[in-house]
């Protein structure tokens, strides 16, 4: 019987500090045992339990994309109250940790084929959306999707993550990237404004489109109004939810919203699905 509680050993290859506040880091991980790559075949939107022996585990969305071979990335924000994230931020390249997974349903990529994608992210919640964007932009996959729009906002220019990748995307002509910040600074020449307002301005068409929204609860809440106004149907709006988790496999009993477990039935839910669930998240 497969033991779902045993982590797969991985080694940190590289650590990238993503923001000015230096509390968001991306960890590039390589598998200690080559054949474990097979065990960890994932899709965009899935997550894993990052496991530190003697410290504990924390569920984190996978930031790399299935097309990234031999490498798994996680972008982790450090919370001072978070035991694992704090310990993780103290590690160096070469250190060994564990991962358990991949868990969760992920985005239904097959259903997205032939559609326009409107990708809306806020703060450090861009991680699994970045996984998805990397995936659809790949030369092998790009043809299968129509227009791609990324709308991404952060509190300040220094808090935007994946800066070099955002720049790269901005230079391509097969993706529309809109960046915005709540407050600019002297060097910021881009948009200033909250994500929901910028969405109204950009007004992507809802025709043959799906919207993918990840961000702080408050941003998601206020994005709902403009996105519905644009004509997106509830079953075409996708969220990725967060919840406190332990087991990751639907047993330990804490991450449920009504009868649905975020670790197993989620973390990706459509707005239609969420409307049928109690508001307890």
């Amino acid at each position, binding site marked *: *019987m497969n033991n779902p509680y045993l982590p797969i050993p991985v080694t940190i290859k590289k650590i990238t500090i993503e923001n000015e506040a230096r509390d968001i880091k991306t960890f590039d991980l390589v598998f200690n045992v080559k054949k474990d790559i097979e065990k960890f075949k994932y899709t965009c939107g899935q997550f894993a339990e990052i496991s530190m022996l*003697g410290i504990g585990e924390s569920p984190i969305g996978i930031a790399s994309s299935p097309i990234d071979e031999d490498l798994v990335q996680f972008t982790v924000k450090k*919370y001072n109250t978070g035991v694992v994230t704090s310990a993780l931020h103290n590690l160096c390249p070469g250190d060994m940790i564990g991962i358990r997974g991949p868990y969760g349903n992920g985005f239904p990529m097959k259903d997205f084929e032939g559609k326009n994608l409107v990708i809306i992210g806020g703060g450090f919640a861009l991680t699994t959306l970045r996984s998805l964007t990397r995936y659809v932009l790949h030369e092998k996959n790009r043809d299968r999707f129509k227009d791609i729009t990324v709308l991404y906002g952060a509190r300040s220019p220094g808090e935007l993550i994946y800066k070099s990748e955002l720049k790269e995307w901005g230079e391509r002509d097969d993706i529309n990237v809109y960046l915005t910040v709540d407050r600019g600074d002297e060097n910021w020449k881009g948009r200033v404004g909250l994500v929901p307002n910028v969405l109204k301005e950009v007004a992507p068409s809802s025709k043959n489109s799906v919207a993918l929204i990840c961000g702080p609860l408050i941003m998601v809440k206020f994005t709902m109004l403009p996105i519905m106004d644009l004509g997106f149907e509830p079953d075409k709006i996708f969220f990725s939810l967060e*919840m406190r988790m332990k*087991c990751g496999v639907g047993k330990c009993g804490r991450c449920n919203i*009504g009868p649905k477990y975020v670790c197993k039935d989620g973390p990706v839910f459509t707005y239609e699905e969420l409307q049928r669930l*109690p508001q307890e998240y």
Partner: protein
Amino acid sequence: MENLKLKIIKKKDVLNFLDSLKEEYNILVPKEKDGDIRFSEFSSGEDIPWDYRNTKISPKEIFLPRTETLFSFKEGTLTPSDSGGVFAPANEPKGSAQKTDSNKRTANYLIFGIRPCDAQAFSLLDKLFGGDDFQDPYYLKRKEQAVIISLACNKPQITCFCTSLKGKPDNEEGSDIILFDLGENILTKPITKKGEEFIENLNSWFKEAKEADIEKKNKLMDLSLKKICSGVDLHNIKEKLDEAFDISLWNEIHQKCLGCGICTYLCPTCYCFNIIDEMDHETGGLATSRGKRIRCWDSCMFSLFTLHASGHNPRPTFKERMRQRIMHKFNYCPENFKEIFCVGCGRCIRNCPVNLDLRETLASLMSFGSMSKDKKV
């Protein structure tokens, strides 16, 4: 035909019978200690408290110990724990919830004399820890190696309400064999194939049951059933609760609750757990790279259960947590497993420090139709 399988064993022979199985099984029997009954390892010559009502702590701890090691680690190398270790109650001397006793020749369990409601609870836990996506190897391995022999209830307690659920004093679900205490004789009835084989292999201890024995058993069970006089009509409770998440009643029924969690702790069907790491500090308190990852019982009645690192808590007050406990058992589990996760053992009622009575809570929920929806969701 059914009755052909019924056998009789003399009560005074039972101790010898169990004694003869000590090599083959880790035998767990109800034992009295400090005024409580607890399942503990059988020792020769110690009588079975045949008329015990029920244990305070539910025997779920046999398959889902209060704490157990998932694996131990040393300098980054993992060693999964052998889940076949011998169960010993946590407060027994030199016993841990899970110790690997190398002297013991067997990993098989014989659970003798468990009450039918608790046996039924195992069949519910099987659905969770089994399941078709992820299996829990620790629970399942122990469960697989066990023969479960239940003891029908002659004397239900006033808090028993198994008949409101699927239970009754001689409920067979979850048991391999069920026993009936007829006074001098014990009537045995095999239920599963495992139970049948168990009795067949030990045939010399048993005699055919006579018609009179069976009649006596039936009479006892009728009498016992009549003694369960408390209950609540739970017909369609799942469908009722489908509409009940926002009702104002939740504002009232949690008021008495202290959030101590004893209801979940003693419940035979509550399974929620936590996973934590523990380091060995043998080298004078200095951190070492040696330790264990441990699973231990947790409770939805605690605020930390769902608290995010960001400070956000989806179930911030007693109201949400109480609602979660009730909804989980009577609505979410019926949705996911087609089963109510309650067997009516009454432990949560008997042991609640503020006398919250689940039967009353359920009764008021069942009659919520006339109540208004809570405006603020």
